[in-house]
């Protein structure tokens, strides 16, 4: 139970708070419009559909404010930096920004659906009221027009007898902006489906910029002020008394003609702050892009893995962080994330780039071909919560799976540098490193790193400092045959390392038993799975 609180407590807390605010806003504004006396006459025309449209609108205001913030990665880095004192859990929460962004997006989609359905009914009922289908009172209310001489203001925004819902939608600001921004939202959502995002990132990225259309339309959506509320007149208009005699309005002193005014558009107040912050974020990315990045070395590894050693003045990194790279020769607008594989102790930073799509393929081709080198590279970052607490524990179990092994290059190198310099920050005495992958193809560079570390440790007589176990989960009978033939060789046939490769997945119970047996003290566990999510367990 304690573990669950440590791992998921803050997540759950934030979710509960966020959901709580949503529910509060929905209920509060529902009751405001369903019970408020200033909407009494409006409700005569629309019933509860008014409240059903306005309540999700409030939730939408709140969530449209929130949605831009998790994608301001430089802002998040700033917050993360200032939370250095406040514990790792808070900072790690910031790594889940994209999950939060998606959650807020789902809420926006859901509320848009409710809001749209309610307004579909509203428009229809406004028109029906105008045609007198809902009785005397509704008919009289709908007949009110904006007239200076008669001191009249309208309640029903449908002012013509011949209009249809479609015409009304496309000739009012609210209707037109509503349709346009809902269409933009739908296109954004369909191109953000995981299948599209993972296979055709460019479609996702460029379509997502329709959010500019979305926010522009959203800000002007309420401009027409067609949701009307009753204003106090002098003498006051008593709705309870006057509702049954609309024919006497303006003729008896108790019932002057009721006056109405449109609600002041409020959405811009919610979203202007985040819009400015996001604008600053994009400007900052542009400034970063302009900063000079020099190449120290470019190395082509087997299995089409490109290693770039880069230099940027003022660049400071921590272990396990990532950067975004932009190469204008390939694409002006695309920034792609890569985990850094160098240690902070080195005076340059390195990324290993594997062929995994259009952009990476072209980058590798540019470095591989006769035209050697890239003119310009933009670097944004570093981002991500650093994995620094691995240094605080005497015994660490590090588990890397698939592509998630990349930050461990940075961690292992940094541990080795700290050990060689006898850095007092390093309390680690023993590391168990588990590397799980389907095949070592494209990770030979990491096997090389392990070989180098293995050699250096042997030279210092420290074979037990790093114990690594490699698990190949994608083995078949040809692998097995090869292993059987090379059974008695000193080094492993796959990796060339001293410690032999295991096949299949590790038996974790056995592994934990063994580690516990060898080290009775407390252990830190860090797991990185295939999609580089963090799971953090202490035992």
């Amino acid at each position, binding site marked *: 139970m304690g573990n669950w609180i440590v791992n998921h407590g803050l997540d759950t807390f934030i979710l509960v708070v966020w959901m709580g605010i949503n529910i509060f806003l929905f209920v509060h504004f529902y009751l405001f419009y369903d019970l408020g006396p200033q909407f009494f006459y409006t409700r005569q025309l629309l019933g509860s559909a008014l409240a059903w449209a306005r309540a999700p609108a409030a939730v939408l205001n709140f969530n449209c404010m929130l949605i831009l913030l998790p994608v301001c990665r430089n802002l998040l880095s700033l917050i993360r930096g200032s939370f250095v004192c406040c514990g790792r859990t808070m900072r790690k929460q910031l790594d889940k920004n994209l999950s939060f962004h998606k959650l807020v997006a789902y809420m926006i989609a859901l509320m848009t*659906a409710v809001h*749209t*359905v309610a307004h*579909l*009914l509203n*428009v*229809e009922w406004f*028109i029906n009221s105008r045609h007198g289908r809902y009785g005397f009172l509704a008919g009289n209310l709908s007949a009110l027009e904006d007239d200076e001489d008669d001191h009249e203001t309208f309640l029903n925004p449908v002012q013509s007898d011949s209009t*249809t*819902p*479609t015409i*009304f*939608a496309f000739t009012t600001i609210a209707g037109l902006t509503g*349709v346009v921004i*809902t*269409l933009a939202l*739908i*296109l954004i*959502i*369909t*191109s953000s*489906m995981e*299948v*599209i995002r993972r*296979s*055709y990132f*460019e*479609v996702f990225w460029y379509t997502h910029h329709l959010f500019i259309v979305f926010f522009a339309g959203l800000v002007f959506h309420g401009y027409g002020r067609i949701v009307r509320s009753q204003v106090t007149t002098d003498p006051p208009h008593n709705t309870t008394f006057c509702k049954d005699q609309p024919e006497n309005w303006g003729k008896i002193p108790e019932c002057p003609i009721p006056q109405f005014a449109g609600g002041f558009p409020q959405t811009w107040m919610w979203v202007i702050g985040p819009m400015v912050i996001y604008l600053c974020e994009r400007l900052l990315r542009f400034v970063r892009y302009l900063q000079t990045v020099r190449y120290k070395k470019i190395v082509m590894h087997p299995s089409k893995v490109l290693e770039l050693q880069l230099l940027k003045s003022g660049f400071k990194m921590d272990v396990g962080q990532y950067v975004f790279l932009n190469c204008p020769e390939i694409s002006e607008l695309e920034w792609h994330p890569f985990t850094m594989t160098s240690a902070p102790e080195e005076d340059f930073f390195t990324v290993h780039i594997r062929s*995994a*799509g*259009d952009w990476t*393929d072209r980058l590798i081709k540019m470095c591989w071909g006769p035209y050697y080198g890239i003119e310009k590279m933009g670097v944004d970052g570093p981002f991500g919560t650093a994995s620094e607490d691995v240094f605080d524990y005497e015994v660490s179990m590090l588990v890397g799976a698939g592509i998630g092994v990349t930050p461990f290059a940075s961690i292992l190198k940094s541990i080795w540098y700290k050990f060689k310099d006898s850095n007092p920050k390093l309390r680690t005495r023993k590391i168990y490193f588990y590397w799980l992958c389907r095949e070592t193809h494209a990770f030979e560079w990491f096997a090389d790193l392990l070989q180098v570390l293995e050699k250096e440790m042997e030279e210092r007589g420290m074979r037990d400092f790093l114990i690594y176990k490699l698990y190949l989960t994608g083995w078949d*009978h040809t692998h097995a*045959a090869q292993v*059987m*033939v090379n059974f008695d060789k000193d080094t492993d046939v796959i990796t060339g390392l001293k410690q032999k490769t295991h096949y299949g997945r590790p038996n974790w119970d056995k592994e934990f038993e063994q580690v516990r047996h060898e080290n009775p003290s407390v252990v830190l566990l860090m797991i990185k799975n295939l999609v580089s999510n963090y799971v953090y367990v202490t035992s």
Partner: protein
Amino acid sequence: MGKIEWAMWANEQALASGLIYLTGGIVGVAGQLKGWEYAAFGIAAGVFVCLLEYPRSKRAKGTNYERTGQYCFTVCVKAFGPLTSNYYVRAFLHAALCVPGGFMLATVLGCVCLGMASLIYLSAAIHGEHWQPIMPKSEPAKSVTQSIKHPPQNPPPRPPAEMRRKRAEDLESAAYVNPLPVTANE
């Protein structure tokens, strides 16, 4: 990975449009809005589009991600042959289906979204894409390959039983050890 297959995005867009068309239609009919006949058509068209678009096509390059339980839909869609596998036909079909939705506000969003899906399918068709069913892979029979694991057919060559038997007068030269002491035949 690599070259975009427009049909994949068109498929997501069309499926979403089908749902939106359906929802708009339900609102139109349930709310008895004016022009509800168009809404009723929207319900039918929405359901049809959803059924047609639910099974994902097999990709030309890359891993296929099937939707849950799509196999029965795949079989139905496959049965129509070129009517469903050709994307020009689909583009035209979606364009035709979306038109009645434009006559009523409740279904206008479904109409526009389906229209967009039709355009993306047109782009897919121009790029030469077509729908292919994802069929379940039949397990290849595990062939017994000629390998070192193949069990031997014949016993190894050995001297006749007479020579192999442990002889009381010459215990050291025997090939095995007996748990019980060997005594000569009485």
